[in-house]
């Protein structure tokens, strides 16, 4: 009995040690994908050009084949203060979720990694320098889904 316990413990530790480094790499997208945070929006398009967002989607998920649906995005139609724009998203079954926009100098706002006990239902507050699209892309069962909403910003909130 004792020997069995000992062996079981040993295997557990080995498995944890083997899994830990790769998991860390995959989780912190600042370290895993340093370049995606620098992908620029076309600011002169007044938030209409999706080029930066599409480039970021490809860089984050490895594909730009995105379908509509399965993702719920809540954001105000008009934001009086661009410095604080409340955004909520839901994407049941998602393992990875990216929050992007076309209003700021760069496209990526946040990338969520959904742990085993995580629930893909998040609320955050973001800055928007001007009117633009807020886009949520989620990877669900190996496919990409998105939701897109235009937020009209009356007073920009990004030092611009």
């Amino acid at each position, binding site marked *: 009995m004792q020997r069995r316990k000992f062996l079981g413990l040993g295997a557990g530790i080995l498995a944890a040690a083997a899994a830990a480094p790769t998991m860390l790499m995959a*989780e912190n*997208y600042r370290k895993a994908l340093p370049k995606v945070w620098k992908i620029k929006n076309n600011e002169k398009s007044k938030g209409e050009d999706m080029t930066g967002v599409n480039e970021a989607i490809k860089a984050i998920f490895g594909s730009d084949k995105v379908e509509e649906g399965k993702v719920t995005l809540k954001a105000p139609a008009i934001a009086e203060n661009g410095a604080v724009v409340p955004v909520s998203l839901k994407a049941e079954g998602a393992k990875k979720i990216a929050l992007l926009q076309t209003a*700021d100098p760069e496209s990526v*706002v946040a990338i969520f*990694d959904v742990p085993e006990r*995580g*629930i893909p239902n998040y609320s*955050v507050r973001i800055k928007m320098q001007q009117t633009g699209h807020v886009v949520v892309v989620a990877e669900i069962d190996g496919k990409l889904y998105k939701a897109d909403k235009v937020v009209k910003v009356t007073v920009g909130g990004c030092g611009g």
Partner: protein
Amino acid sequence: MRIKAKLKGDKTEVKVMMKHPMLSYREAKKKGKEANFIVYVTAKNEGATVFEVSTSQFLSKNPYMKFYFKGGKKGEEVEITWVDLKGKTKTGKAKIK
């Protein structure tokens, strides 16, 4: 850091407000300061990671987040840690109510 964790049926709801100026590159330039913002946030419940996000300069000042995770029990701890661009890190804890 202000954290509220509340058990809601079979899941736990967490609300957190992190104290940080979140100075974007443009805002920093205007103020003659260096850009600095939170880049990574994780939450743990009794040792298991239950929330994880990599973030940018476009989260609002003093970032607020709300999230849920499966399980959790009253009295257990939720521990939230952030790291900013300069490598400064801060951890806060709250008990699930």
